[in-house]
């Protein structure tokens, strides 16, 4: 495969079987989004959001501002560096050092928000900064229709083409872009496909929300395409991340383990013959946690208050 630059190499990720983890009588496939140029699914939406924004003029004399727990920021930082667009990221202080380091290396400016408010806190800080200063342009992955569109016409299209017999799709819920976009494409292909959301255990770690009005539901999330939704405890996510590595040789991030855990549960409880689980990023940013080989208690200790989604 030949591409003229890394931005053009985004997408068209491998869909690979997980024969050792698939329950008997079922087929289970993983969409390896860690194979994107910066190592996560977010390359897809970063490219689409920036391309769409460029349609109304060059962005080099603006400053892009984005709240992100990591991967979206890293994807935007790579693209903005290649295009010469200034970028600032608001990120909870509770994310791993690897994520901050990646942003620094690509040349993005990082603003830290309160760790105990998770990504909700980062969104509020970024909204306030954008409101106070017109130099900022916030593409806002939580409200930008380019986010689900990148998945509807990219990720979802690839899955339907490569595995038309799919009857279940499982992915993590962060902005809702993956589930909304892929879900729409899959339901058009076959309305009987079950779309399942895997939700991080926010309550385990995000303890700083002062009231329920601090809750947040992304505007782009279309819950009508989601059929079932499960929350995943941290330790279950760690164990599944390790199983992916040890049993299938797939080196993935912790939210990928969470999605796998939910996929295995949903295959059994809801029923499926051919399931695709989307693995949002690779394992590199989580190497220091030991999650790929250590037991769950040890990983929990290593991770401390860090958020992993």
């Amino acid at each position, binding site marked *: 495969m030949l591409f003229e630059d890394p931005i053009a190499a985004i997408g068209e990720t491998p869909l690979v079987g997980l024969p050792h983890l698939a329950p008997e009588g079922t087929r289970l496939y993983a969409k390896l989004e860690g194979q994107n140029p910066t190592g996560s699914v977010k390359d897809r939406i970063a490219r689409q959001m920036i391309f769409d924004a460029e349609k109304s003029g060059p962005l080099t004399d603006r400053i892009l501002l984005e709240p992100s727990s990591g991967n*979206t920021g890293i994807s935007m930082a790579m693209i903005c560096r290649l295009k010469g667009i200034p970028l600032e990221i608001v990120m909870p202080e509770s994310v791993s050092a690897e994520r901050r380091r990646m942003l620094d290396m690509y040349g993005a400016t990082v603003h830290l928000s309160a760790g105990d408010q*998770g990504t909700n806190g980062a969104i509020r800080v970024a909204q306030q900064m954008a409101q106070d200063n017109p130099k900022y342009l916030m593409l806002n992955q939580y409200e930008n229709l380019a986010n689900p569109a990148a998945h509807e016409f990219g990720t979802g299209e690839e899955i339907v083409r490569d595995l038309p017999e799919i009857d279940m799709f499982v992915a993590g819920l962060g902005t809702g872009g993956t589930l909304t976009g892929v879900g729409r494409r899959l339901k058009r292909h076959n309305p009987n496909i079950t779309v399942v959301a895997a939700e991080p255990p*926010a*309550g385990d770690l995000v303890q700083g929300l*002062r*009231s329920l009005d*601090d809750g947040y*539901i992304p505007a782009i999330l279309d819950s009508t395409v989601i059929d079932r939704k499960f929350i995943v*405890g941290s330790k279950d996510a760690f164990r599944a991340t390790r199983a992916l590595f040890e049993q299938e040789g797939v080196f993935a991030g912790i939210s990928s383990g969470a999605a796998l855990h939910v996929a295995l549960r949903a295959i059994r409880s809801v029923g499926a013959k051919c399931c695709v689980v989307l693995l949002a990023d690779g394992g590199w940013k989580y190497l220091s946690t030991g999650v790929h080989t250590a037991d769950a208690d040890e990983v929990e200790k290593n991770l401390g208050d860090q958020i992993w989604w």
Partner: protein
Amino acid sequence: MSVEVKIPTVLRKHTDGEASVTASGGTIRELFDDVAGRFPEFREKVMGDDGELHRFINVYANDEDVRYLQGMDTAVADGDVVAILPAVAGG
């Protein structure tokens, strides 16, 4: 029927600081009625006037979001665990 209802940090000031409350009932609605009987502020924090869940509240029965099951009418059984959590974002 006895079901454990886990209370998020943000709501514990309305449950005398309890992180977990044992409640009885055959559905989420009956459980919450039982909890609200003991902690009156709990009802307005979790449910709207229409008796449905507050928008920013997610409720899970054995880790599954009840909005995608039968909502407040989702059945629960003895020994089940129900968790209440605020909606949060990722990305």
